């Protein structure tokens, strides 16, 4: 019985990954049509991007500050505190910026997108659009997917900037590192292509992954309060796992 149950869970898991893959293809197929609804895409970029600014900026600032404290301590053991700016920038651009921003967006905007689409499904709004000959994939799903891909790298940039500002605040203003050393070492070491752009590529992929999972979970949410609640939770859980797994794979390929 248990073995059967486990096998069913496994099969269901594999089937839902397959469904999500097919859904991804359908969303991509609806992208050209969704360009007609560019206003809707702009609204979603505003919702995913601008509305997430406060949480992304606050977290970026604190993470930068903590990084400066921790790295200052570690670097001081080797007498290399002058590299503080460089190490903070590299950690943020290459890793923390894209990953933490994606986790934050999954929690803030991903859940909202899932709940919104789940409720649209439950109240027949998606069917009503279909009946008015408006493809809900093009009007609802694709703009939200596209918004994630556009907004995530922008948010990651803001996160990185705030992180470096926080690191500067602690390293230079508080711990007394030389301002010129902090910026000079950073700008001479950090590469636009290898560090900054690679981080942004990651961010774009994470944006696509988070918004795809959020839209898919909303689209397939059972039309009940419990169904929408579970789907919202699944968005955060699956997004977090997939972000970290993709991060490993992409880091392995990009470095």
């Amino acid at each position, binding site marked *: 019985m248990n073995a059967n149950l486990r096998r069913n869970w496994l099969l269901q898991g594999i089937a839902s990954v397959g469904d999500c893959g097919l859904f991804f293809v359908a969303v991509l197929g609806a992208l050209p049509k969704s360009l007609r609804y560019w206003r809707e895409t702009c609204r979603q970029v505003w919702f995913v991007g601008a509305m997430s600014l406060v949480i992304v900026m606050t977290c970026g600032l604190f993470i930068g500050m903590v990084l400066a404290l921790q790295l200052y301590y570690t670097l001081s053991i080797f007498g290399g505190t002058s590299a503080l700016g460089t190490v903070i920038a590299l950690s943020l651009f290459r890793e923390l910026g894209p990953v933490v921003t994606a986790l934050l967006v999954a929690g803030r905007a991903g859940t909202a997108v899932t709940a919104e689409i789940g409720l649209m499904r439950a109240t027949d709004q998606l069917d009503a659009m279909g009946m008015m000959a*408006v493809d809900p994939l093009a009007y609802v799903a694709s703009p939200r997917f596209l918004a994630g891909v556009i907004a995530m790298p922008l948010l990651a940039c803001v996160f990185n900037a705030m992180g470096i500002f926080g690191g500067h605040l602690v390293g230079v203003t508080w711990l007394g590192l030389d301002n010129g050393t902090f910026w000079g070492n950073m700008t001479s070491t950090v590469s636009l292509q290898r560090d900054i752009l690679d981080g942004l590529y990651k961010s774009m992929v994470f944006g696509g992954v988070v918004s795809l999972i959020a839209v898919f979970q909303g689209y397939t949410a059972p039309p009940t309060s419990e169904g929408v609640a579970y789907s919202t939770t699944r968005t955060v859980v699956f997004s977090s796992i997939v972000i970290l797994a993709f991060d490993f794979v992409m880091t392995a390929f990009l470095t």
Partner: protein
Amino acid sequence: MNAVLANQKASSDALVQVRGLRTRLGAKTIFDGLDLDVARGSITAIMGPSGTGKTTLLRHLTGQLRPDAGSVIVDGEEVTQLSRRALFGLRERIGFLFQNSALLTDFSVFENVAFPLRQHARLPEELLRDIVLTKLQAVGLRGAAQLMPAELSGGMARRVALARAIVFDPMLILYDEPFVGLDPIALNQVLRLIKTLNKTLGITSILVAHELAAIRQVAGRVYLIANGKLVAQGAPDELAHQDSPWTRQFFGGEADGPVPFHYPAPDYATELGFAERAP
């Protein structure tokens, strides 16, 4: 050649033709060989016990749901075979009033009614505004144009959904429970609107409803569906007096008859434990 001509004639008389419709949802058989025709320019009511698949039938007519077998022809097009693009083309000519209104909650009443026009017709803003306000006036809600769906009562939301369904002056309007939640004044106006649309624009209407008194006022023909089949049909008054066990039970509202009132359950006394306690 004769067969083609005969087919063309049939399709010009009947806007909707359903033949041998079979549908199963999960373990439940919804339709088991359903046949019905809806004449062009008519008002037809579909009645039947709850859970008998009336809404499912409307979903078949619009291709939202594909049947397991059978044919559904609407305006000469076989809905079950249509591509997505062709289906959307057909749907532009069909208005659908959802049971729970299904208004888009992000948009105001005005924008909800304007939505189909904005998507499919490039109209100057002034003309669009005039059309939307005319439709809202017809359902008595011109003054509510700027309200959001959350601010409407159930009956008002239904009237807005009705205005949205008729905004394109479609050839066919499907009403799923249009009278639920309407007060007598609104009910009368909606009935008058359905009749006016039918008479002046020749719009064919299919109503799924339980309100016999209202149906008698508008519908020319009633189909009674039960157990996945058509069990009776005719003019409303004719049907109410027809001597069949189905119509007697349905129009008489009796608990006993071919339609069981109780969902299948074990014996009542046994479940309450009386059978064991009895001497």
